[in-house]
Structures are given as C-alpha cells and as structure tokens.
C-alpha cells in the first residue's frame, strides 16, 4: 500500500483526502443502491463491479499524487504492472468494470425515468387482477389475467369491450359475474382522462372465496331475520296463548266443580228428608251458577275498543265526556287520544273533583289537534307533567308531536300531531 501521511496542504494531501472520500462513497453506494434484480449473484457482481471501479479510481488518483511527487516510477502498483502481467490484467479488468458500472448506472437512471411499453406490459402481466385500458372499443393495453377472464366469459380474449361492459352492467347490476369454470369475478370500470381522449380502465378481480362467504352470510342473515320475525309475531300473539291457557285452567276447575256438584246432588237425593243437610234451592243455585259460567265461555273474546272502554267507564261513574269533532282513524292517534282522555278524566276527578271533560278534535291537511279541558277546580300551582302525563308526553313526542299543559283558568291539555310523519304501528 502507498504511504500517505503528509499533512501539508498541497496537492498530494488533497489527493489523499480525495481517496478517502472515494472510499466512503463506495461504501455508501454498496449499502444504499440496489440495482437491477434482487438475486444474490447479481448483488455479488454489483459489489465486485463497484468495488473494483472505486479501487481503480483510488489507484489512478494515487498515481497522480506520485507523479506530483516526481516519483511515479516508484509507484508500486505501476511498477508491479510492468513487472507482473496478471496485475496488469487485474487493472485492465478494473478499468472495464468501472466503465461497465458507470454505463449500467446511467442506464438504470434513464430506465427509471423512461419505462418502455414492454416494461409496463411485463409488470401488468405479473398481476393476478385483470386490467385493461381501452378507448372507444379499442384495446390499448390488456394483461394476461384479463384475457383469461374474458376468454372464459365470452370465448374471446379481446371481445368488444363496450358491449361486454353494457352486458355485464345490465345482467349483473352489482358487477359480480360468476364464470362457467366456477370462479366469480368482480368488474369495475373508471374513466381516465389523458389529453382530450378519454381512456377507460377496466379491472376484473377474482373474488370466488369472498363471494361464497358473503352468500353464506346472506343466507344465515335471512334465516335469522325470518326467525326474528316469527319471534316478534309470537311475542305479539302471546297474549292469545296466555288467554287460552287461562281459559283451559278455568275450564278444568269448572269440570272439577261439576264433579263435586254431581256428588252433592246424589247426596241430596239419598239424604233423610227429615234431616236435610242441603236444601234443593241451594243445590239449584250452585248448578245455575256453574252452568252460567260454562255458558259464558261460548261468547267470543274480543279486544275492547279503547274509546268504548273509556266512554263506558265514564258513563258508569257518572262522568261526562263531551266530544266535539270526529275520533281519529289513525291507530297511533287513537292510542294517544284515548290515553289523554283517561289521564285527564282520572286527574280531574282525583285533583279537582271534575265531573266533565270537553274533548275537541280538529285537523287540517298537515296536523291533528286534540284539546282536552276538564271542569275541575283551578289548581293552586302549575301542573307538573309527571306519572301518567309524562308518559303521555313521551308518546306524543315519539310520534313527532307537541304537548302542552295549561293550568289556568282551567286545566287543559293540548296535543298536536303532524300528519304523514306519524308512523303506523
């Protein structure tokens, strides 16, 4: 190795520093740059090329230093080159490597900035997703995967793409196409603008597994949905079941009573007339009662109309409900009005000794209004909406309506329900 310890700021020192920099740069290039390919052989060859290139540069610049020293003939690598031919060959190889590495390096840079169509095609062909670029039915670029899908779908690797796309769009609105070979493909198309001419990018992705899973999920969800529907139906009808269960229970009891009555009748007929334990009238009364009950089961049970119940109760207890307007037909509005009538009647009786309730029903094309006023005592303080009134207000608000309670001069509840936004139950 050449000795180079000289700290005078002359050309020799600069050359020494240059050699050090070259060494550092060569290490950096080796570590940083990955050239063409990723194979180990390529990596090794790159190391050799770069290493020998920088070694040659160092030798040459060191030779220049010796030239300045005026001692070029004593420069070891140069002397050895003349005396030992194989060293000359190594140096020649280093020169060629340097040239080659420089050329490759420049080609790489140029290649990165200027990909050729072949490069693009090659990279697209390596994709498993089908890709096709077309413009007005003319295929600009198509990869192998897309050709394969189109061949299975249409029998042709490059069919009329516009017609194909329209067919797929009309036949499979979700753009998912099952192929004859069992695969499932999802197509999508988007428009790219390049200059004035639009170019369309058609992609096709195989989603066979995902599609199968989604179909399975769909089927299970449908099953669950049906089960839930049935469950809700059962829940709504459970009162019928409860009713039937109670009727059965009562019938069973009645039949037991009938049995007991028969025994009692027999004992009556066998008893000593002078010392009767039971009178005929008692027995008859029991028989009549039991048969009356048995007869009552033949009448059909019907859910009572809510207004009939309230008007009936009011009549029974001597409370007057005076209706102005027509009762609503809408199920929700009926529920709200009947609840309001009940609350106003009960609260009026309880807190104000009311005897009458005026109910006014008005409506126009966009809302229905209920106004309920009782003739009870004016309350000493403002009415607080708690308990039943609070529940009523919640019912009204759930249906998008408004409720107002006025305490003076008379207790009045005013409810406005919008028409149209009131959903049927």
């Amino acid at each position: 190795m050449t000795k180079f310890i000289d700290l005078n700021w002359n050309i020799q020192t600069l050359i020494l520093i240059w050699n050090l920099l070259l060494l550092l740069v060569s290490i950096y290039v080796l570590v940083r740059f990955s050239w063409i390919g990723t194979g180990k052989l390529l990596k090794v060859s790159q190391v050799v090329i770069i290493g020998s290139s920088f070694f040659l540069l160092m030798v040459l610049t060191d030779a220049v230093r010796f030239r300045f020293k005026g001692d070029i003939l004593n420069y070891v690598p140069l002397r050895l080159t003349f005396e030992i031919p194989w060293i000359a060959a190594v140096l020649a190889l280093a020169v060629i490597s340097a040239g080659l590495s420089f050329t490759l390096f420049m080609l790489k840079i140029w290649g990165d900035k200027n990909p050729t169509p072949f490069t693009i095609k090659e990279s697209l062909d390596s994709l498993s997703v089908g890709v096709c670029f077309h413009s007005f039915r003319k295929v600009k670029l198509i990869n192998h995967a897309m050709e394969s899908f189109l061949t299975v779908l249409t029998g042709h690797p490059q069919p009329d793409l516009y017609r194909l796309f329209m067919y797929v769009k009309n036949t499979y609105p979700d753009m998912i196409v099952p192929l004859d070979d069992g695969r499932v493909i999802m197509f999508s198309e988007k428009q790219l603008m390049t200059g004035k001419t639009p170019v369309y990018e058609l992609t096709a992705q195989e989603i066979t597994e995902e599609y199968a899973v989604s179909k399975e999920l769909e089927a299970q969800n449908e099953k669950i949905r049906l089960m839930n529907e049935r469950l809700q139906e059962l829940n709504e009808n459970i009162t019928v079941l409860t009713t039937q269960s109670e009727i059965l229970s009562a019938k069973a009891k009645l039949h037991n009573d009938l049995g007991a009555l028969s025994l009692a009748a027999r004992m009556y007929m066998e008893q000593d007339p002078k010392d009767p334990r039971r009178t005929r009238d008692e027995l008859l009364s029991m028989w009549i009662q039991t048969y009356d009950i048995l007869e009552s089961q033949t009448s059909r049970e019907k859910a009572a109309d809510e207004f009939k119940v309230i008007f009936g109760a009011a009549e029974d207890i001597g409370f007057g409900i005076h209706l102005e307007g027509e009762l609503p037909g809408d199920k929700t509005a009926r529920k709200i009005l009947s609840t309001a009538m009940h609350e106003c009647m009960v609260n009026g009786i309880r807190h104000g000794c009311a005897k009458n309730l005026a109910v006014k029903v008005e409506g126009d094309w966009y809302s229905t209004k209920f106004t309920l006023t009782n003739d009870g005592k004016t309350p000493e303080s403002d009415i607080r909406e708690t308990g039943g009134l609070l529940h009523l207000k919640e019912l009204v608000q759930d249906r998008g309506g408004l409720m107002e309670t006025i305490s003076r001069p008379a207790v009045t509840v005013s409810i406005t329900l919008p028409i149209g936004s009131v959903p049927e139950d």
Partner: protein
Amino acid sequence: MAFNVLIVDDQNISRSLFESYVQSDPGYRLIKALDSARVADAYVLSTRIDLVIMDVVMSDGSNGLDAAEKIKKAKPDCKVIIVTSMPEVSYLARAREIGVDSFWYKETRQISFVDVLNRTMAGEHVYPSSTPLVRLGNCVSTELTDRELEILRYLTTGVSNQEIADMMNISVHTVKVHVAHLLEKTGFANRTRLAIEARITGLVISE
C-alpha cells in the same frame, strides 16, 4: 257491611268465576266486572271500592300491574289482589314493590282463591313463597340468575345483542356471555329456540 269489589279480568270465564266467588259470599258486593285494566283507576277514584281483583295480562294491551300501581298511589287503602296464570318471574317482585296486598296464581292448588280473598280483607298479605317452578329445557327457572332472566326477557323480543347491551347499559361481550350461559344451562341449540320456549312457558313476558 259488605266489602265493595271491583273485578278486572279480560277473560269471560275467569271473570265469571271470580264473580261467582264474590256473589256467593254476603260479605262482598260486586260493584263492577271490567274486561280492561285501562280504566280501573277511574272506578276506584269515583266509587268506594274496598277490593280490586286484578288480572295482569289483558287482551287490549293494558297491564294489571300498571293499573294496580295507579290505584295504590291514588287510594292506598284500597286492597288489591293480583291474579295471574303466568309464572313471569318479575310479577311477584313488582307486585310487592307497588304494595299489592296479595298475589294468587290461578294454577295453584296450595291455597284457594276464597282463602286468599278472606285473609286479605282480614288484613293479611298473602303471597306465594316463590314463582311457580318452570322447566326450561334442561333446567328449572330457579337455576337462572336475575340477570339471565332479564336478558332472556329481551331475547324474546328478537332484538340483537347490541340492542340488549344498549338497553341494559352493559357491554356486548357481557350479553354474549350471559346468552352462552343460558344456552348451556337450558341445553337449547340456539337463542331463537330458547326465546320461543321461554315465551311459551310464560317464564318471561316482555312489555
């Protein structure tokens, strides 16, 4: 002086039976027999009623326990006997909470209704010691915890785990754990089957 009685039961046959009990005893006078709990409180407020015999589940959607609560608030002295054939676990607890005087299961043979009636008017509170035992799959109702019963009640309405979690203010994971425990205890294959069976037995009834 005879006690004034109001009977509230939507079933003709049950109502008739209660009427016969009341009318056969001179110590009681039937004021009215209603087929809906909706307006029971109006009668209690406007008439002197000493006793209300109230069914729970009504065909018009009104609930006897709700009506009993209103009656006890408005007239605490008025006695209320709740009668039902449903073993729904929450009814007993709610009845005690409201202050219902007595509770009678229609299916029970341990005590007659007349006995309950007389003892209630004498000032006693007659309650069954527990809800009727209900078999649900491989287990009985007493083997289920309160939390599990609450979740089972929601399950019968067909709502999702997330909805149950939101309504109960617990995590979805907790709901799933409870559902898993229910399925394990009852031996049912899925939650739908469990919900159907629970509903049919009347063990849980959602409002």
